[in-house]
């Protein structure tokens, strides 16, 4: 097995360019990567993944991944499953928008305040799933999972 980072979760955003929900996936994933769980996550580039990026595919074969999709076509989840392994969790922005009772979220180019709020909610959901995969307590604290030497 190649030398890969330890104890990381891969995040794959659909980045759908046609829908504002696609932009929400990007913003949410970046929020988790940069702020919420910077030590526990990496992003995998979906276009590269689809274009045959070996590094991305190898990571997704051996490490847990969370697919973050804008709509129920779930391109990120399906691509991960098709080319590597089934993602351990699948987050769909449209579903969270319903739960949040979000109204119009702006455009794919520019999210409005509601869109930014939705991205925060999606980011929190991704962080929760990340913690679950790494067997951490809510808030990012390390738990006592077997094999967890952190």
């Amino acid at each position, binding site marked *: 097995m190649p030398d890969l980072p330890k104890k990381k979760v891969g995040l794959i955003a*659909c980045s759908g360019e046609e829908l504002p929900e696609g932009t929400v996936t990007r913003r949410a994933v*970046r929020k988790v990567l940069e702020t919420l769980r910077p030590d526990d996550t990496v*992003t995998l580039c*979906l*276009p590269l993944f689809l274009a045959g990026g070996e590094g991305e595919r190898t990571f997704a074969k051996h490490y847990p991944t969370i697919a973050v999709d804008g709509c129920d076509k779930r391109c990120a989840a399906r691509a991960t499953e098709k080319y590597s392994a089934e993602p351990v969790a699948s987050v769909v922005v449209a579903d969270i928008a319903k739960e949040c009772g979000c109204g119009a979220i702006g455009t794919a180019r520019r999210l409005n305040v509601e869109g930014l709020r939705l991205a925060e909610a999606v980011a929190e959901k991704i962080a929760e799933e990340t913690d679950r995969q790494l067997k951490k307590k809510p808030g990012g604290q390390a738990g006592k999972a077997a094999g967890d030497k952190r």
Partner: protein
Amino acid sequence: MSPTRRKIPVAACSGIGKSLGAAAREAAYVLTEDLRPEKTKVVALSLLVMGDEEARREIGGGAAVAIDGCKLECAAKGLACSGASKVHKIAVFDVIRRHRGLKPEGVCDLNEDGLKLARAAADEAAKIVDDIDGEGRDA
């Protein structure tokens, strides 16, 4: 351009890890919303590559424009695999060489230089769109 002519599909790399990818994505929006809205249309790269029939119909065996952030050219590859008859490439990593003072930063929120770079890439893409349109009219 005839009102019945199909819009030219534009795919951007949508790279989530680098500013140049973000600039490519922004350039696609500048092109399709500001510069040539009547002639172009954004298509979602992930849908295309996953074989979505509706997205592939948008390509329809015609010319398309790819705006890529890095040398891996995922958008160009995606369009080529989706049936585009010709893929016209804009490489943001080349565009920035022609605008050496720019220092793009950010992914979700590009800085001012990133937005300028996106505009420069979109300007180059608009010229290509006009050429494609001219060829179609002449044909």
